[in-house]
């Protein structure tokens, strides 16, 4: 077992107690805790470098701009982009996917065209495409799952033809943990002339990402799910696609020249960053990817695969507990969703909270997926590099307490 427990000291929030017990934070699929390095980088930015970017002629503004653009270069390197110009800073994964839907989709889709998603998708990779369909007359289609919760590649051929212009796919399910074969789907999409858009909100924090090796066209992620601050994320896009795209938002910073009636746009990526950007957040995002790179994403993945395998094993000891997701660790990440007998997930979350354990209950912004699973809600424990086997162990007595309170035999 890889040992990353030395890292826990880097996360001040994890040092506290909750309801009289050591806090066991198992909701990193919702948002992650922040290491001191990220907090310090943002604090230092405001204390020493704060100025608006890309406009001041003075030294301080130049330094702020270098920090902001430096963060872009770090994120570019982290996902294997060909150039920092391929990284657009957005508010997060949701706004990144909307940027593609409205900057690319609006100009390339026609009535009768299709957008192919998978049954795994988070609402962030469903609703923007529904809006786009409403505007363009295109239709949505979904690639189904196999009985063991993997994307059914055998159905790819009959879902994918020349009418499909966009394939939207999760890089890792936030509910089932499923890691779909993105590269294979993207290759098939390319063969029929479709672009592939990856929702990497869960993938980028937990798996090594190389956009060139994946062979995809766009990839979206959120800083706060990968040790960084809220309010910022990234859209990676192939440069020729970004350069051909229209901005979804207009305003300052994104223009080349503004006339009274018409304007021309700045080149990518600034074309898509209207208004003063979240500069401190970009600096924090850069510090977060530095931290992850220093640990090594292969190491992060190894640690989480170990924890996930251990959790699946321990949870299988609990009578009446059902886990939704692939049983083999090589096909899944550390989002483990489950139900326990007839105890509703909200009740489970309340009971675990009293033991200091933070888990998520609900549909996790994936209602269509939960309808397929046939449950209105699930409880979800999700892991990150700072979690330990002892924290997995803490689930067991808490779940036993839930069974006692509800009188489950």
């Amino acid at each position, binding site marked *: 077992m890889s040992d990353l427990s030395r890292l826990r000291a880097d996360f001040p929030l994890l040092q506290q107690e909750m309801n009289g017990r050591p806090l066991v934070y198992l909701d990193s699929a919702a948002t992650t805790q922040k290491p001191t390095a990220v907090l310090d980088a943002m604090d230092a930015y405001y204390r020493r470098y704060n100025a608006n970017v890309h406009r001041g002629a003075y030294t301080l503004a130049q330094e702020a701009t270098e920090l902001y653009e430096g963060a872009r270069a770090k994120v570019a390197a982290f996902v294997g982009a060909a150039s920092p110009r391929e990284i657009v800073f957005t508010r997060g994964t949701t706004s990144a996917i909307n940027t593609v839907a409205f900057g690319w989709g609006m100009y390339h889709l026609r009535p009768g065209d299709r957008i192919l998603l998978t049954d795994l998708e988070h609402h962030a990779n469903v609703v923007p495409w529904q809006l786009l369909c409403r505007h363009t007359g295109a239709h949505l289609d979904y690639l189904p799952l196999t009985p063991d919760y993997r994307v059914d590649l055998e159905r790819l051929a009959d879902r994918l033809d020349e009418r499909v212009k966009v394939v939207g796919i999760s890089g890792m399910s936030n509910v089932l943990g499923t890691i779909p074969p993105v590269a294979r789907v993207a290759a098939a999409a390319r063969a029929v002339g479709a672009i592939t858009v990856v929702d990497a909100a869960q993938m980028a924090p937990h798996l090594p990402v190389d956009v060139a090796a994946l062979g995809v066209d766009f990839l979206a992620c959120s800083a706060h799910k990968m040790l960084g601050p809220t309010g910022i994320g990234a859209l990676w896009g192939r440069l020729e696609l970004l350069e051909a795209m229209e901005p979804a938002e207009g305003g300052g910073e994104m223009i080349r020249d503004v006339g009274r009636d018409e304007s021309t746009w700045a080149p990518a990526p600034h074309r898509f960053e209207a208004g003063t950007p979240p500069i401190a957040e970009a600096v924090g995002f850069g510090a977060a990817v530095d931290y992850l790179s220093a640990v090594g994403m292969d190491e992060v993945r190894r640690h989480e695969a170990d924890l996930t395998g251990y959790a699946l094993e321990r949870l299988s000891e609990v009578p009446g507990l059902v886990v939704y997701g692939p049983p083999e660790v090589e096909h899944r990440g550390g989002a483990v969703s489950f139900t326990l007998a007839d105890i*509703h997930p909200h*009740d489970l979350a*309340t009971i675990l909270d009293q033991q200091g354990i933070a888990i998520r209950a*609900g549909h996790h912004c994936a209602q269509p997926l939960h309808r397929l699973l046939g449950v*209105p809600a699930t409880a979800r424990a999700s892991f990150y590099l700072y979690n330990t086997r002892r924290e997995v162990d803490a689930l067991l007595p808490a779940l036993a307490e839930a069974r006692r*309170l509800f009188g489950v035999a």
Partner: protein
Amino acid sequence: MSLDDLYREVILDHYRNPRRRGALEHPDAHADGQNPLCGDEISLDLAFDGDRIADVRLQGRGCSISQASASMMAEAVAGRTLAEVEALMRRFKAMMDIESGDPGIDASRPGAALGDLEALQGVRRFPVRIKCADLPWATLAQALESRGAGSA
């Protein structure tokens, strides 16, 4: 506050054996209540005899607190006049600290003011769950409003 005070036996009984389940063929008033964040759902049918609630039927799914609250509410409002139901709603919301007011609960006479619903007092100590307990009551208010709108 212990969990045993939250998950009282009477709450689990209403959760597992919900009263007045089903739908009315010709309801005089109807409302659907949802908590989009957690997916709890309540579907409520009412039949009136003058200003008296002659029948109540409920469907829905969700956590023990929302479903037990719905079942207890259905029992509490059946056969009551609108004025009595409104008084009950005020007492319930006062008990849950949703609105100010005196729920009129006498610790020496448990159940005298609000019946089984008094078992939900423990929910107050779990603020994120208050909305679960309130969902059926918000749905009832909606159904009463829709009836007002329909007959106006």
